[in-house]
């Protein structure tokens, strides 16, 4: 795990839909190789923040840099180069419905890697095996369950060994065993490749197991309520709303 260098930096960031600001004054930095959990009540703008951090949406105000590049103002080639080094899992998995799971994973590899088809196939099979889909490779997304689609989406997000991986509710729709296995996978990827992970999640046990930092988005104030290691917020007296989020969700 590498540390020190900030791979993701937000400075006075404002995000929203169109001109409507959902969250503003967001400022934090994430060192490389760390896992950040974006938490908060439903509808507070967690996915919107993740899209802005990953360069999919332009922020309304402020600045965010990923690997030292401001994606909102970066030239096309720089932007492509950064996006090539990131992976995304969307809430609805967003698998290409006309491709099998294997083809879904192979698609970004074919576009960006220069290795032979045999090795691409081998890599895709390995990624699918990592998420427990070794025997569903030739199925279409319409033939698998929501949980399996989520796992296939994670495999596709990992296809190019990204330096930063964005996961929007990765555990949603997964059974506790699969969810635990996914946490283990995230930790192992970080340990093996130093992958930085940004994840949106409501699963407190999973956040406590995996995240090094969490940012709490407070819809009442329209800005971040707290930023720090999740375990800190378990102690009473620390940021009351975040403490309540962790403790209530934990024992509900």
């Amino acid at each position: 795990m590498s540390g020190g260098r900030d791979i993701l930096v937000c400075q006075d960031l404002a995000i929203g839909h169109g001109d409507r600001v959902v969250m503003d004054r967001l400022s934090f930095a994430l060192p490389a190789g760390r896992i950040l959990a974006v938490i908060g009540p439903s509808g507070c703008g967690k996915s919107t923040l993740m899209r802005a951090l990953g360069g999919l949406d332009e922020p309304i105000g402020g600045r965010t840099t990923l690997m030292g590049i401001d994606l909102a103002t970066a030239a096309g080639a720089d932007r492509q180069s950064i996006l090539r080094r990131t992976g995304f899992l969307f809430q609805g998995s967003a698998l290409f419905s006309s491709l099998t799971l294997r083809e879904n994973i192979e698609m970004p590899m074919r576009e960006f890697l220069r290795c032979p088809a045999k090795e691409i196939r081998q890599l895709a099979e390995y990624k699918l095996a990592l998420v427990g889909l070794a025997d569903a490779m030739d199925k279409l997304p319409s033939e698998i369950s929501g949980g399996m689609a989520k796992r296939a989406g994670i495999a596709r997000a990992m296809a190019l060994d990204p330096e930063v991986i964005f996961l929007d509710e990765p555990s949603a729709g997964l059974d506790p065993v699969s969810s635990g296995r996914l946490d283990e996978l995230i930790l192992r990827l970080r340990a093996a490749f130093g992958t930085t992970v940004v994840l949106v999640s409501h699963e407190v046990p999973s956040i406590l197991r995996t995240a090094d930092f969490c940012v709490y988005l407070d819809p009442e104030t329209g800005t971040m309520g707290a930023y720090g290691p999740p375990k800190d917020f378990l102690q009473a007296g620390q940021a009351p709303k975040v403490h309540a989020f962790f403790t209530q969700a934990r024992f509900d």
Partner: protein
Amino acid sequence: MSQAPSGLPFARTEIQADGLAVVTVGGVWSADVALPDLAFKGDRVKVVAEDLGTFDSSLPSWLFARGRHVRQLDLSGLPARLQSLVTMAEKASETAEKPEEFGLLERFGTWGVDSGSSWARAFEHVGQTALGFLRMVTGKAKVNWSDFTLQLQTAGVDALPIVALLGFLTGLIMAYVGLIQLRQVGATVYVANLVSLAMTREMGALMTGVIACGRTSTAFASQLGSMNVSQETDALRALGISPVEYLALPRILAVTLMVPLLAVFATFIGVFGGMVVACAGDLSVEQYLTQAVRAITFKSFLVGFIKSVAFGFIAAWAGCYRGAVAKRSALGVGEAATSAAVLGITFIVVSDALFAVIFNLFNL
């Protein structure tokens, strides 16, 4: 055994006296460079690292692909973080469900059963539609009437320009072909009979039915298929509302009502198209119209009208049926739209042939 050049990934195998194959891996492993083409030999393999530099997932995937077929694989000679990446994929594969394997006979049987159930679903949908009509007549069905008025507009009024164009050209073509033949026997005056009779009994209804399949069936299949994808039809079922009654009935009703009107319109435009050609050469307008009016009998009109009602129903039903059974994916919606047009046109032509036989039997 020669050492691989520094930096490039390498692998070599040594077979020990006790049969254990020792695979040595090293170098820098990346998916962007050629990987060693080496197969694991024997059923007992130990992998060790030597001068192993950085690696991405090309190394664990290389080991996983080769190691999964080995009975006894020892990875203890590798760094712990690499071991964990291989063993994790192996463990996850062990717990994954094995797909069922089917032989040729089973696949043929499955195809037969699938085809049978596909026809059964089609008949079931026809039955549900008929039942829905009965429930609608008795006021029990929940029908989306705003869809009905919308479809009167989109499937009916909006189709007028294309129906007019194709109807006109059909009449024109028939008149051309007819004139060439009839000139040889000096009976060009009968071109009016030919065009008006063909348009009234056959072509008006057939052309309109085919246009409805191209425009309306595909639109219905896409609409209902997309609603399937977004689980809107499930939401209707959960509310206790039949999707056939709520979504399909107003569409089928609107199209079954509009296609006969469009067919009558196409017939008149087609007769006019024939007149343009006929009067440009051999006939006067009076001659053409006199012959045409003589040729169009109430019986011919009735035959064309009955056909157009049936064709309208078939076009709308094909779209609604294919949409209802569409697979829940973008691909499924596309397939539904294509198959709706094919199904509609096929059924229209088949039913046209059946009508020809039936009307002949009844001397119509």
